[in-house]
């Protein structure tokens, strides 16, 4: 290994042949990149994933140690202070945040990532007296543009998920025009700065406008569209990090930013596909895509069938095949443990218990999987949309817990519906559908759900957690 380090400079960088220190730093970065990619690759197999990500953490440690050897670093008090403070805040965020709060936790971390990138960008601009060279300016511009809008956008997403900012879309007249104008103006300043970088006032105006764009972009987006927004912000945070790498000439930043950007991009594409929305529609922050609910079908004089927990318990006790469709409501009611307990009881009686997970169920990609895994549901019982959709025909009972739009048949039958074309779970093909629901309120898209009036559907009204607890005690007595 030592021989390798000694040789490398001669072959690859003759200009600074004696620069062992720089080579050493770069080698730690190389090791970090390899470990990061292996870590991400390990996520393709659940059983190997934990080990792989632990190796990635080792890679991060290597990169940090390598960086501390950098010759520009002459004082350590602020570094140590930042590392300690960051650890003090990061540790509880990592160890004690419950799985139910995961979407807002992820949104917050996008904010911190973008904040770090933006601050480095602002400082780099400030340090170039007379303005940076054009190529650097272009990178810095991208960095603060993406960074700043991710900071406020993520904060807004955090607020909506945490509930201190309204989850319903906030819209007003001319909103699209205003947003697009602001976006165009900001981009115009960016282009002008690349041509003529020495305009600090314009630079800070651009940062401020990006911050505003982040707020305006997320305001009109409803709670149910959050999976797309969170993935998109993931991508933006990555692009900002990558741009930092271009600005300071650091490859490890570019690579990690690109990995992050690609991941977020891919997830947003998957999420938008699962909602049958074009990617362009999503890229522009779902401008104007906020469903209005005006297309809600008339209810007429149809009636819903209400059912008691006792009856449901009897059905479940004798069912051979039960499929649960969880939705955001399960996360809100925090009843994943009760679902699991119910599953154990059904399985004891010889029934089969499966979970059907729609890609956009919940508030972020994979939300339901994490919640159910927390409740010790084996992951081979969790089925994707494509895997399970043929199996509803054979199901005796389907339990819909806090899901609405993802089981709405209007997505297939009503071209006028805002969710028309969205792939849904075919629960209406089951023998019996039990919907656990608080009241008859419409889903987050504001669309009336035909499923509730379906002849094979019964409604079990009430809080999902207490309904499930009732079911558990009833089924024990059957």
């Amino acid at each position, binding site marked *: 290994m030592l021989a390798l380090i000694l040789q490398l400079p001669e072959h690859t960088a003759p200009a600074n042949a004696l620069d062992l220190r720089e080579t050493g730093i770069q080698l730690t970065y190389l090791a970090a990149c390899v470990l990061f990619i292996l870590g991400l690759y390990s996520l393709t197999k659940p059983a190997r994933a934990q080990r792989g990500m632990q190796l990635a953490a080792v890679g991060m440690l290597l990169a940090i140690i390598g*960086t501390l050897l950098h010759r520009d670093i002459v004082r350590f008090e602020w570094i140590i202070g930042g590392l300690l403070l960051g650890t003090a805040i990061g540790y509880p965020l990592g160890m004690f945040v419950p799985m139910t709060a995961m979407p807002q936790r992820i949104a917050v971390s996008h904010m911190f990532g973008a904040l770090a990138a933006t601050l480095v960008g602002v400082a780099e601009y400030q340090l170039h007296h007379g303005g940076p060279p054009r190529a650097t300016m272009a990178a810095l511009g991208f960095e603060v543009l993406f960074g700043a809008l991710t900071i406020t956008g993520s904060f807004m997403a955090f607020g909506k998920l945490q509930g201190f900012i309204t989850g319903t879309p906030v819209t007003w007249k001319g909103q699209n025009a205003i947003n697009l104008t602001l976006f165009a103006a900001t981009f115009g300043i960016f282009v002008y700065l690349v041509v003529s970088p020495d305009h600090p006032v314009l630079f800070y105006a651009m940062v401020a406008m990006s911050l505003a764009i982040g707020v305006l972009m997320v305001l009109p987006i409803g709670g149910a569209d959050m999976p797309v927004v969170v993935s998109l912000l993931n991508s933006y945070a990555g692009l900002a990090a990558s741009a930092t790498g271009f600005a300071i000439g650091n490859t490890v930043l570019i690579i990690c930013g690109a990995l992050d950007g690609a991941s977020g991009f891919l997830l947003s594409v998957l999420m938008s596909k699962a909602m049958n929305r074009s990617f362009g529609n999503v890229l522009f922050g779902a401008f104007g895509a906020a469903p209005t609910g005006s297309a809600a079908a008339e209810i007429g004089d149809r009636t819903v069938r209400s059912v008691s927990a006792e009856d449901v318990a009897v059905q479940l006790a004798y069912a051979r095949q039960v499929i649960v469709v969880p939705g955001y409501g399960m996360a809100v009611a925090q009843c994943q443990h009760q679902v699991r307990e119910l599953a154990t009881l059904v399985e004891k009686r010889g029934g089969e218990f499966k979970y059907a997970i729609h890609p956009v169920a919940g508030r972020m990609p994979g939300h339901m999987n994490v919640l159910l895994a927390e409740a010790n549901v084996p992951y081979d019982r969790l089925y994707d949309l494509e895997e399970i959709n043929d199996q509803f025909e054979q199901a005796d009972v389907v339990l819909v817990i806090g899901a609405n739009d993802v089981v709405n048949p209007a997505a297939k039958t009503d071209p006028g519906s805002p969710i028309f074309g969205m792939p849904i779970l075919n629960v209406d093909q089951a023998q019996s559908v039990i919907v656990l629901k608080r009241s008859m309120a419409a889903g987050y898209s504001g669309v009336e759900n035909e499923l509730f009036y379906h002849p094979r559907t019964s409604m079990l009204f009430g809080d999902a957690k207490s309904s499930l607890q009732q079911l558990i005690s009833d089924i024990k007595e059957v």
Partner: protein
Amino acid sequence: MTITLLFVFVLAGFVGYFVITRVPPLLHTPLMSATNAISGISLVGSLVLAGSNRGTLATLLGFVAVTAATINVVGGFLITDRMLKMFKQRLPGAAQGDGEAKALPGGNGKAPRAEAR
């Protein structure tokens, strides 16, 4: 130099795209927190900023950036680990498919290799 960096960016993007395409929806949330932790690598840029003697503003911004990036690194890796531990349970046949992992370093060497220059 900039063009070389652009090569690195595009190739790393491809590697990321093809690796992440294979991540099952089951692990999409851990994937997000993992990429978050990894993007905490912006700590590298922040550390140099906070530790170099380039004026009070740079040090101060660097300090805040180090703090923010450290939150992501520490919190991100810890929470990913917590989640993945839940998915690891009861799968005794974990050895299957390890052959694919061995094939990886060579295949993915492209982008990181440019790093050494």
